[in-house]
């Protein structure tokens, strides 16, 4: 019979740890009822299915060979009954198997996502999104593929045992001759998948390399065409296409070696049945009914024998996958609600950093002995060279990371004593890298508060300079943006991000280089708006453009992990050599700025 056994290949490269098995066990335990049902239902199916050849034997013997009255009717009706039973229970087994396995998959995926959402920034800094995605996708599919096979595996095992027992009870010698070669099928099936798997992986690898060439040629088409480099790329593609061809032929050769051999063995069993069994019939030691039953049993056994090896490798792969999932689930959130989280007292958002030391996992402290006080309602610009830790300061305030030494206080309360939700709703941050969700402009702006009125959304948009372009889009605020929607310029995206922060009406607003992508010719528009947003609100501005820095009441210069100078922009220009240096190097990033400020900046 032509089949597609190849779908179940073996993967023993990764050895699953105990954690993987434990998570699998846990998930199965939660669904034990469904699994028990599936297995139970499967056993009924096995019973019906295995009884059919025996019933056929009895029907032929009594009805045809012995020609007993009523026997034909009796046995054919019983066979029909077995058929009805098998039919009903094959459907039920399928249903339970899929229900349970999908349920396990869905539950784990939900747990994974919920957990990831609560994991600290430092975790996400290290983890690649693609990796996490594949855990929630490919790995869970592996788990599902194993769980779905559990009921049918029980059925198969019982089928093998029961059919073998019946055959032996009919004629032990014939059973031995007919079945003797069959364990080899099992061995061949295992060897087949262990040889095919690496070949298929190799083929996948070659296919990936081929699509890399295609992808880079298409994305780099401007370069290829600009240089007339088509022949170079064509030669590379030919090489990859040849590699793919070679690998494919290799896998075909493996198929050609094993698949026919796996067909051959049961066929040899059939030859034995006809050869030895035929003479037994001649001698009167075997009935024709029994001979037919042997034939049918052999056919019945092939598939279960081939697939028993499968469940082992499926289980191994599932455990390895579960282990990768467990690894994420077992990571405890480093930043969590304190046991008795406080609520912020009324206040204007006074911010106080005292003796703060902080370093990222892999290195020296970025901040060391940093003190900063921002009185309620004031705005401070933090200026510093690249890597001086400006953005780090911004991230410590809403507790994306915890300080190692020192404290961060808002209106006198240590941020670590506040309920996280409370804290983060009080601190609005606009990140340097703008992230917007694929949904409407409105829901992006109203992210903090989806129930915000249209007026509130529009007000926030006006304040951030987003209203003008947003209202001119075809669908206005209802325009869907993002990957599959309307694409905005970097500056427009930043303005929406600012509006998002403004709408939340935070006590403290942090603008982390929030206008870097705004076209210099348009920046002044935003500057007016920002002026208004910042009025009376504690604000931290991180920027290199002098124009943006000048928005703040006060400027502090961050160097060597601490604040080394502070004052107004003009004061610092006049007094601090380091300040001038830092601004001058930042200036090279946009020479249009320097055109405006030749005297001031090129000191």
């Amino acid at each position, binding site marked *: 019979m032509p089949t597609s056994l190849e779908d179940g290949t073996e993967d023993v490269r990764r050895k699953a740890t105990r954690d993987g098995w434990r998570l699998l066990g846990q998930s199965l335990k939660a669904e034990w009822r469904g699994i028990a049902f599936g297995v139970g239902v499967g056993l009924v199916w096995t019973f019906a299915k295995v009884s059919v050849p025996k019933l056929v034997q009895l029907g032929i013997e009594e009805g045809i060979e012995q020609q007993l009255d009523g026997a034909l009717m009796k046995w054919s009706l019983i066979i029909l009954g077995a058929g009805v039973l098998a039919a009903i229970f094959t459907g039920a087994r*399928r249903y339970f198997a899929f229900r349970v396995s999908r349920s396990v998959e869905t539950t784990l995926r939900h747990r994974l996502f919920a957990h*990831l959402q609560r994991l600290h920034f430092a975790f996400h800094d290290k983890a690649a999104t693609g990796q996490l995605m594949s855990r929630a996708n490919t790995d869970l599919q592996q788990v599902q593929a194993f769980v779905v096979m559990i009921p049918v595996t029980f059925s198969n095992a019982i089928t093998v045992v029961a059919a073998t027992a019946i055959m032996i009870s009919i004629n032990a010698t014939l059973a031995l001759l007919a079945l003797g070669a069959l364990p080899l099928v099992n061995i061949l099936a295992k060897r087949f998948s262990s040889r095919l798997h690496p070949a298929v992986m190799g083929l996948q690898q070659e296919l990936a390399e081929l699509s890399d060439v295609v992808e880079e040629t298409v994305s780099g088409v401007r370069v290829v065409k600009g240089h007339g480099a088509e022949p170079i790329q064509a030669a590379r593609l030919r090489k990859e296409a040849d590699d793919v061809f070679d690998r*494919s032929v290799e896998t*075909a050769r493996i198929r050609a070696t094993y698949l026919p051999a796996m067909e051959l063995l049961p066929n040899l069993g059939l030859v034995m049945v006809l050869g030895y069994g035929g003479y037994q019939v*001649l001698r009167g030691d075997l009935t024709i009914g029994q001979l037919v039953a042997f034939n049918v049993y052999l056919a019945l056994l092939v598939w279960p024998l081939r697939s028993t090896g499968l469940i082992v490798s499926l289980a191994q792969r599932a455990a390895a996958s579960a282990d990768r999932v467990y690894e994420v689930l077992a990571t405890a959130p480093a930043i969590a609600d304190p046991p008795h989280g406080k609520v912020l007292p009324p206040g204007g958002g006074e911010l106080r950093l005292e003796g703060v030391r902080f370093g990222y996992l892999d290195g020296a402290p970025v901040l060391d002995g940093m003190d900063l006080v921002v009185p309620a309602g004031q705005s401070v610009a933090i200026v510093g060279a690249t890597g001086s830790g400006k953005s780090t300061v911004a991230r410590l305030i*809403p507790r994306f990371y915890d300080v190692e030494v020192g404290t961060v206080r808002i209106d006198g309360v240590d941020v670590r004593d506040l309920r996280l939700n409370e804290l983060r709703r009080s601190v609005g941050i606009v990140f340097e890298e703008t992230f917007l*969700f694929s949904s409407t402009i409105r829901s992006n702006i109203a992210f903090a508060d989806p129930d915000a009125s249209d007026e509130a959304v529009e007000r926030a948009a006006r304040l951030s300079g987003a209203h003008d372009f947003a209202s001119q889009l075809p669908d206005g605020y209802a325009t869907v943006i993002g990957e599959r929607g309307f694409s905005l310029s970097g500056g427009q995206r930043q303005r929406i991000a600012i509006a998002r922060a403004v709408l939340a009406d935070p006590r403290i607003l942090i603008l982390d280089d929030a206008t870097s992508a705004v076209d210099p010719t348009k920046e002044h528009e935003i500057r007016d708006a920002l002026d208004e947003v910042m009025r009376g609100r504690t604000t931290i501005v991180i920027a290199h453009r002098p*124009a943006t820095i000048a928005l703040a009441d006060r400027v502090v210069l961050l160097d060597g992990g601490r604040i080394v100078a502070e004052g107004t922009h003009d004061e610092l220009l006049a007094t601090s050599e380091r300040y001038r240096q830092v601004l001058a190097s930042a200036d090279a990033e946009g020479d249009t700025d320097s*055109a405006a400020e030749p005297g001031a900046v090129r000191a």
Partner: protein
Amino acid sequence: MGAVGEADALDRGEAKQVLRRAWRRLSPYRKLVISGALLSVLWTGTIVAGPFLVRYGIDKGMRQDDSGALNVAIGMFVVVTLVSYVTYRALIITINQVGEQFLRDLRVQVFDHLQALSMSFYDREKAGVIISRMTADVESLSELVQVGLIMFVSNALLLVITVIVLFAMSWQLALVCLIGLPIVVVASIKFQRESNKAYLTVRDRIGQTLSSLQEGLSGVRVIQAFGREDVEVGRFGRRNQGLFDAHMHSVRISVWYFPIVELSGIAGTAAVIGIGGMFVRDGIVTIGTVAAFVLLLANLFEPVQQLSQLFNTLQSAGAALSKLFGLLDTPVELSEHLGAVDLPRHGDIAVESVSFAYASGAPVLRGIDLHIRSGERLALVGPTGAGKSTLAKLAARLYDPTEGRITYGGVDLRHATLRSLRERMVVVPQEGFLFNGTLADNVRIGRGDATDDEVAEALRAVGALERFAALPLGLQMPVNARGTRLSAGEKQLVSLARAALADPDVLVLDEATSSLDPGTEVLVEAAIERLMEGRTVVVIAHRLSTSQRADRVGVVAGGELVELGTHDELVEQGGHYAALFASWAGGLARQ
């Protein structure tokens, strides 16, 4: 297993056409195809022969007490079994040989065609779609070739041959026990349709769940910053549940189908015993025939089931093939004319009443006249979308003008050989783009046959050799298009070195809009400056400093060349350029 959306499914006429074309493409391997067909017939024949021989052995051997006849049956069975083994093996190899060669040639041909297509094709089509032709579409064909085709052909043959043999042995009994067959066929067709639909929903929901997941992960910082974790988890939960529901829906569809197949098979067996037994008593059939029926019926319904599942693979392969043929049919716009001549070594570029429109839209450029002297540096400025980059690219024949003509040294670019065109004119795009390979390979994109020394020389010419030679593996360092270790500025340096290696007479430069880190910025500027020396340069300028340094500035607005002159002239003139200059400077001077 693939599934096909209704929009993609081919109608009968299209399917016929695709088949005919595929058949024509197979002509180089026709011998292999024919032997493959013969092998499949032979192989399926051996599968059906087994029960037939059992029948012979029972009727002629056991029932007649004729051990000679039994021996014949056994001997034949041995032969058939061996033939089955050999033919199956040969079949797998043959079909894969044909299929993989077919795929290899198709890949190469489609890729060559893709590369021959003009820039306007790439502007029109999304990169993802183009790439998926060469990947997803070819792979759905490859799935068919690898396993699907053998299974499809053998199952179809098995079904047909079995039915024929059953009728040949006893048409009466065949009629009785095949009553289930039409039911299974109808159920299979219905099941195939519904499960295909269900599968499309599942695929859709998988996409939604994954994109929700992806968004939740890439946006996790924003979500946490706004304390919206619970809401996002809830949103994801609904998507996730939706996926579960879709899965369960598709399971429920199969829950009625598989029992029908199961029951039809066993009911057929019951009928063979009941009715066949009566026929034996009446002498209509032999007991051997009953036995053969039992054995053949056991395997009859499986092919139907498999065929219905393979139908999807077949359909999506057909759809893929049709799309690929469609791509091959897309005409190459920038082909080389017959009798094309090499461009002269030096010359002026003359743009004469040129208009240009992309295939789909309104004109981008209208009536442009422009003379660029050999060795001149021309900066093009203007608002985004005004047509300045289109104009620059027309000058290097990345597109052909819709009206008018562009000449170089008096030769119409359309009459130039493509080779000489790319030798004389090189376009350096905005972002430095890297290909998978070593640094040296990447520079060599500029001129494929360049030696390592020439590559190093080109890097030296743009002042980047020291920087790259200092890397651990030097110029042999592997870089790749995605997670590369080079900074944006270094990528631009590579891109400029390519141009230096190509050593063109005309350089079309698209200046980067985004800023670089200060250190590399200086290097890049210097590299550009060196590269421009002694060449005719058309630069799409985004910075004031660039246009200030150019010999002449052209302002493109609304698809027309509205101003042309030196920087100082244009500022004095008080037109568009002066206004642009004022807003540039003014917006910054305000504070």
